[in-house]
């Protein structure tokens, strides 16, 4: 009988009203496990740095056998979790005094513990949605901003796994509101209005993040018509075109996306270009003909022609007189896709936006 309403409230409610539990502050200060963002300025180089208590944020710690995760004093109630997310994205994400990799590692870890507290307490769906949305924007932003980093510094796979997990959780929460059928009791009608804006955005983000995935496409086309916004249509068009090999349409439509979604789509370009080269190697196969570099640069959203030349050589294709000599025998099928590159155009757009505002309030 686990399915009735009563079972829902068998969860603990946290009593920790700070971003970090008292015990952890003491322990981490004692063990010198403070992050530079959590130290009283000027004491960084002391043998015993002092904790800046209002800047301490609870660390993620893996649940393990024998470890008691359910102490209310160590759990933050939803309002404090939201406050923590706001603090991290507002005060830390935009800092420019340290490398963004350090910022990423710190925020990533602390957000993970926010998610953990959220799950252990099974906080209300409205809170989960409000907490998850900025987290997802952060992970999406990070996956683009750090895509050129070395794998030892930033592992895109781990980041993507987190992003996918958060997204799926968020979509589950959305589905629940679908089932409510707008029968607005307890003021949830107001919340549903708020959802209208954000939901179509995150549903699109799911489609773009999982470009060419039939599961994601199927989900989006099954959405009830009230969520099928312009943005969803564009995202679907991109993903279906990607599936059907229409890379020209994909690249044209990417430019119509909002910046953060466009940056996520950019991460699929190496794969898209690879398959474009594969198709073109057969379709433009010729000893005498060349495909002009400038045309291809524009078609496949390359920053510079040097990047195309690099990619062509990598896949075994010849470049002569500013033109590519496509040949089905030269193209090397076995080469994995090239490393991701950031897009100059998107970088410019992002540099004109305040990161904290983007992550907290969306675009």
């Amino acid at each position, binding site marked *: 009988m686990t399915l009735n309403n009563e079972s829902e409230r068998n969860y603990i409610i946290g009593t920790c009203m700070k971003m970090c539990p008292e015990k952890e502050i003491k322990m981490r200060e004692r063990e010198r496990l403070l992050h530079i963002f959590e130290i009283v300025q000027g004491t960084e180089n002391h043998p015993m740095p002092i904790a800046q208590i209002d800047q301490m944020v609870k660390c993620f710690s893996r649940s393990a056998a024998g470890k008691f995760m359910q102490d209310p004093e160590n759990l933050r109630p939803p309002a404090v979790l939201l406050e923590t997310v706001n603090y991290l994205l507002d005060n830390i994400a935009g800092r420019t005094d340290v490398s963004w990799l350090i910022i990423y590692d710190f925020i990533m870890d602390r957000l993970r513990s926010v998610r953990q507290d959220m799950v252990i307490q099974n906080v209300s769906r409205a809170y989960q949605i409000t907490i998850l949305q900025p987290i997802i924007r952060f992970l999406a932003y990070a996956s683009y901003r750090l895509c050129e980093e070395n794998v030892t510094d930033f592992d895109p796979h781990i980041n993507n796994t987190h992003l996918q997990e958060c997204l799926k959780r968020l979509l589950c929460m959305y589905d629940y509101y679908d089932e409510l*059928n707008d029968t607005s009791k307890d003021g949830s009608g107001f919340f549903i209005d708020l959802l209208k804006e954000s939901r179509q955005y995150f549903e699109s983000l799911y489609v773009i993040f999982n470009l060419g995935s039939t*599961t994601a496409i199927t989900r989006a086309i099954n959405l009830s018509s009230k969520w099928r916004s312009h943005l969803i249509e564009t995202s679907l068009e991109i993903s279906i075109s990607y599936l059907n*090999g229409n890379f020209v349409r994909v690249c044209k439509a990417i430019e119509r996306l909002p910046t953060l979604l466009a940056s996520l789509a950019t991460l699929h370009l190496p794969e898209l270009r690879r398959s474009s080269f594969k198709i073109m190697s*057969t379709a433009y196969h010729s000893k005498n003909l060349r495909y002009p570099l400038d045309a291809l640069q524009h078609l496949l959203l390359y920053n510079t022609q040097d990047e195309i030349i690099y990619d062509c050589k990598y896949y075994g294709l010849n470049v002569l007189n500013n033109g590519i000599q496509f040949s089905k025998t030269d193209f090397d099928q076995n080469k994995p896709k090239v490393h991701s590159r950031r897009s100059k155009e998107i970088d410019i757009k992002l540099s004109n936006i305040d990161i904290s505002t983007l992550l907290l309030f969306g675009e």
Partner: protein
Amino acid sequence: MAFMTLAHFLQILDRSWRNQDGNKIAQFMSLRHDHAKYPNYQVEQPEGLVDRFLTSPLDELVCLHLKCLYSISRDDFLMAYNLQSQLIQSFTKILQAQKDENWALPIMFTVCSDLRLIAQRAEKQRVGASENPGEILEKAAECLMGCFRVCAADNRSAEEDTKRIGMLGLVNQLFKVYFRINKLHLCKPLIRAIESSPFKESFPLGQQVTYRYFVGRKAMYDSNYKAADEYLTYAFQNCHRTSRKNKRLILIYLVPIKMLLGYVPSRYVLEKYDVIQFWDLVQAVCQGNLRLFDELLEQHETFFIKCGIYLIVDKLKIVAYRNLFRKVYLILNTHQIPVESLQSALEYLGQDVDLDETQCIVANLIYDGKIKGYISHQHRKVVVSKQNPFPPLTSLT
């Protein structure tokens, strides 16, 4: 079924159990059998009466069954679901204890498909109570997996007594759940279990048809059209001719797949099985009439989405491109087709494409072997082969 007192009903159950008459018990334990409708079988606390007639282990099953009927009569499907799943858990233990005998399999099939049906009703009733949609069905699937494990692990019995022959029926039930909750990846281990089973060919034909239907649909989602064609064709050909509803269901998937592979369904078959909606689509694809194609896709969007064939129907557009380009080629009667001509044909049919995208579409067709030739970007020409530039689709692998 004629009216029968509960006592009489219990006596028959008792006798059938002793006689190992699985079919009879299956009927009397079914939520869909006639007796389910009579109020005298819908008992809230049947223990007293049941204990007078039945002994362990049957008494527990029958008590749960009668309670379940009671809950259904009260429209409490969540409770009914819980009772039926307890029933299956007890039954699984009984089944496991029966060494070297498989007469109870018909009971298993009945209670298991009942559980699935009840879970579906409970899903609808549940709204708001639990966290994720599909959760009850997923729990039901776990329950069925319990039975499946017992069957699959029964490898000591002789061939005529083995419970492994019950695997396919359960797999089909699980497929139905997984397709409904959209968790197709869970099908994979089940398919492997069946494909490697020594009884692969000896399962009842009806079950094989159902199995091939679902595996075919899964292959379709995985874009494995050749395999999808094989499975669905088998299902269609072997499905009993009186099961028109099922034959129609199979055709809904088989028709677009066959079309993608270059076959054209006959109007007669489409009419016979009431899927005439496809006829216009067939016309649009054959003529390369993309305007009509777009209109039909929009007009029948809900139907295509509901059946889960939207994406594959959308893929038929590629076949339509091929047919249109072939027409342009025949009209111009040249082996060097200007890309501009192809683009104007597309534009004329309402497609919003420029020269680059037209070339991209052609490039894909050449890559797939649907057009033989190459593109010259400088001259903006598609140079097609002198021999057989548009090979029949059916000749492609």
